[in-house]
């Protein structure tokens, strides 16, 4: 994120702002009320309703003091409609902002009570929030410009000759490994979309062994994966493992004609 010298902004004005359904959008919408196609782009380009509002205010495209109430109501309904297609949470935040703007406008239309003027300006809270957000938006940009590890500065990596000094490796207890697994599964389960199956490990292990046995160039005989000495369970586990690998497209099974030997090879 670099800052530009004043003036370069005008050079950039002919650049398409974004592509909306393949069409370059060079003109910023004239008011807060964004054409629905552009909305998705807006939601991605801005960090939220405050960010968007700041942008529009800076562009002098919106006058907080004079918001057309009819348009805002129409837009409000469009948001509700769009929420069906968009990230609900994100859209809701823009929605809250739209209603806040509507409220400001409607309060300004009402005759003012005789109370002190400063406290009662309905815009004050919005302006305070915009200013506060602007301050931290700037702070984030300043931090982005700081020199940092991995990008601007690198740690030295000076070898320690192995023979003289044996740098110890961390010790790990089995219990730590189990706890790590439990924690990560517990966390993942909080999100409904991530479902960690409780498959029997023996199948997983067998899948790995099958993968180790084969490679992409060679064909391995199907029967090589079964060891009768393992008994019925062992054979079943091998079979399930092969089916599982097949399902994940990790292996291919080939047979030149009916009853011919079956071969397994890595998918390539």
């Amino acid at each position, binding site marked *: 994120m670099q800052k530009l010298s004043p003036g*370069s902004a005008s050079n950039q004005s002919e650049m398409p702002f974004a592509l909306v359904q393949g069409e370059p959008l060079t003109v910023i919408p004239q008011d807060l009320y964004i054409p629905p196609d552009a909305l998705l782009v807006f939601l991605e*380009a801005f960090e939220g*309703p405050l960010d968007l509002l700041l942008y529009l205010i800076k*562009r*002098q495209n919106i006058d907080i003091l004079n918001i057309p109430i009819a348009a805002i109501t129409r837009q409000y309904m469009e948001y509700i409609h769009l929420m069906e297609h968009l990230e609900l949470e994100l859209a809701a935040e823009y929605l809250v902002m739209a209603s806040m703007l509507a409220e400001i406008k409607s309060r300004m239309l009402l005759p003012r009570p005789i109370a002190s003027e400063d406290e009662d300006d309905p815009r004050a809270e919005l302006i305070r929030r915009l200013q506060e957000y602007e301050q931290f938006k700037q702070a984030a940009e300043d931090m982005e410009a700081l*020199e940092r590890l991995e990008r601007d*500065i690198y740690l030295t990596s000076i070898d320690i000759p192995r023979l003289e000094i044996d740098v110890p490796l961390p010790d790990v207890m089995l219990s730590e490994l189990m706890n790590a697994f439990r924690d990560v599964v517990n966390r993942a389960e909080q999100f409904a979309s991530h479902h960690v199956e409780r498959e029997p490990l023996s199948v997983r292990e067998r899948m790995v062994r099958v993968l180790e046995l084969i490679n992409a160039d060679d064909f391995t005989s199907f029967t090589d994966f079964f060891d009768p000495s393992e008994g019925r369970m062992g054979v079943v586990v091998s079979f399930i493992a092969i089916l599982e690998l097949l399902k994940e497209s990790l292996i291919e099974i080939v047979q030149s004609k009916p009853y011919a030997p079956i071969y397994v090879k890595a998918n390539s």
Partner: protein
Amino acid sequence: MDIDKLKPILEALFAASDKPLSVNQLFELFVGDIDQPSKDEIRKAIEDLTEKYQHGGFELKQVASGFRLQVKADYETWVTRLWEQKPPRYSRALMETLALIAYRQPITRGEIEDIRGVSVSTNIVRTLEERDWVKSLGHKEVPGRPTLYGTTREFLDYFNLKSLNELPTLAEIRDLDQFNPEFTFEDKEVAAN
């Protein structure tokens, strides 16, 4: 300990350590030695070493948790060529969240959300915690007892800072009518996307 004997030892220690080393940590390493250096001697040797590296490719830099040898930013152009991998990039949402935690700590997630006007994703908080840049400082005694977040020494180390005081000064709150003339970078940023 003679400073000319101490200097190469410290140099070897800084070279070998993958974490910054503080004067106290260094001092502890010599405890029990017959010829044990004082903290002042260690400080002096560090000063001399800092001086020594002035014209080289790396420097002895003081960050929050101590001193470390690091490649000077001037040579970043060449050093990046050593690796194919690009440095990690962090989203604006993450940087804004981090900035709020850095400048407003202790702060709750709800307070961050109030200022940013959008919800803070769990991934952002987890990434910040996993990088060890942010940690829980306790809980706020309000309903729900939300976690209070603050930054760590590792955060300062990563951003090459000795203390929070070295963070860029927070911009003064500006009047809205001052916004317009200063508007500069938005176009480029959006166009680049």
